[in-house]
């Protein structure tokens, strides 16, 4: 069973030591600005001068680039090609072949869309790589997020690998009784049916036990909860968050004024 259940990579860096809320705020500020700013190159600049250098500051550049390469490049590449080919309108034709006509305008629009998606996903990758999920939840709980909500998020993250390994066990059990799970697509789809029942109902039965286990640990206690780790929230964090908020407001205002 894998020991690692999140994307988090433990390194010590200035970026890691920021408060989780600051990092989350940074992600959202980048995204909002990338989408609202009236300037064409904003998203590109945010990625090139914001997200990418921060990945180096956070010393997760290798993992960051790998994830971006595997996840982002195929997705954005596909979107770029489709939009370039199919966006209607556009005066200045670059080239055409068969039924397709690629214009400067469609390419420009495709690039804008792609650069924004790039900022959105890469910022989240950076966030996930440098923020421990329980640090985020501890911090948000302290700020008033209900404990049950935080629990649902964290336990879901943990339960996915458990469900995967349970599904593997069920598949192995059914194959050992002669069920075919490989071969044609129809075969594979048919093999899913006897998997879903045991997996879903088995999990539902476990819910009661897990609820008992959590209650036994005083989860519903009305005392004010404390936390094992202290999550630092420095003056720098607070300053940064106000600064980001200011940038977001400016960006939205610029968009409104630009019409």
């Amino acid at each position, binding site marked *: *069973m*894998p*020991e*690692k*259940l*999140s994307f988090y990579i433990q390194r010590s860096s200035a970026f890691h030591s920021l408060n989780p809320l600051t990092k989350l705020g940074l992600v959202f500020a980048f995204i909002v600005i990338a989408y609202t700013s009236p300037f064409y190159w904003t998203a590109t600049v945010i990625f090139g001068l914001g997200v990418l250098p921060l990945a180096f500051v956070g010393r997760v550049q290798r993992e960051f680039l790998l994830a971006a390469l595997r996840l982002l490049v195929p997705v954005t590449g596909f979107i770029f090609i489709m939009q370039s080919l199919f966006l209607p309108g556009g005066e200045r034709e670059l080239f055409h072949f068969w039924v397709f006509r690629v214009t400067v305008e469609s390419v420009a629009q495709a690039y804008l869309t792609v650069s924004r998606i790039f900022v959105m996903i890469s910022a989240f990758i950076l966030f996930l790589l440098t923020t*421990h999920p*329980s640090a985020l939840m501890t911090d948000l709980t302290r700020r008033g997020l209900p404990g049950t909500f*935080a*629990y649902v998020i*964290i*336990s879901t993250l*943990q*339960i996915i*690998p*458990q469900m995967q390994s349970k599904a593997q066990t069920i598949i192995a059990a059914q194959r050992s009784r002669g069920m075919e799970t490989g071969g044609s697509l129809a075969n594979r789809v048919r093999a899913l049916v006897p998997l879903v029942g045991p997996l879903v109902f088995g999990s539902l039965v*476990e819910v009661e*036990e*897990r*609820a*008992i*286990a*959590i*209650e*036994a*640990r*005083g*989860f*519903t*206690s*009305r*005392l*004010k*909860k*404390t*936390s*094992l780790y*202290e999550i630092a929230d420095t003056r720098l964090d607070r300053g940064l968050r106000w600064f980001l908020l200011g940038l977001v407001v400016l960006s939205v205002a610029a968009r409104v004024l630009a019409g």
Partner: protein
Amino acid sequence: MSIVELRNVTYQYPFSERPALEGIDLRIDEGEFVAVIGPNGAGKSSLCYTVSGFIPHFFKGELQGSVVVGGVETRQSTLAECVRRAGLAFQNPFNQISGAKYTVFEEIAFGLENLGVPREEMRARVERMLERAGIADLAGRSPYALSGGQQQRVALASILVMEPQVLVLDEPTSQMDPIGTREVFGMIKELAGRGLTVLMVEHKVEWVAAFADRVVALDGGHVIAQGRPEEVLTDPLLAERNFGLSRYTLAARAALQAGLWPAGRRLPVTLEEAVEGFKAAAA
């Protein structure tokens, strides 16, 4: 002084035909180790849930009679207060892991966080607990990456760190292999030696004989026998009612029926007692 006191307790789960517990009277003294045995459906788990307050706070249905733990009626307090007095651990170690924590250390601290224990004290208590449970070397591991026996010791430590007055164990080793069983019992033995009050449901009667001050036999929601382990565990009544007696008891019983067991000698529970008995028979 009794720390747990059940008086005429009857409980029926919602949508069930008959009561799971019927007219139970049970007192447990401070520092006492009480083992509960019984066939499936005897009401063993229900008894655990009643003492730890899950009945009536978690399981609905009707609870009659009085359940007093640590001087307080369970009905009168919240579930969180009940589990502080009587901590509960059960069979499946995997389902007892909170799922909210990434290391064993954090897992054990989870209960203390919920109780609002200050950070310094929390660290000290978790560290002490890790030592006592013999799992200090696991502190940094993911609770999901442990063996069953290790997980169960983490689960026990997670409850004990909250310092309950009574520890309620519902078949803590039923899903363990022999090594896991030995690990878990080793820990329970260590705790019992420190005077912790324990109520344990357990099928492995040889272990029960080694630990318990008193054995309570449940069947059909009734207490049908209780007393010293060597008396209850060799009671012929239990063999007739499908209680899982130890193989030594069963062997000696067969020997008795064949006229090979010394007349008047009590039936054995453990290997040593059986050896003694058969030696005496051969002599």
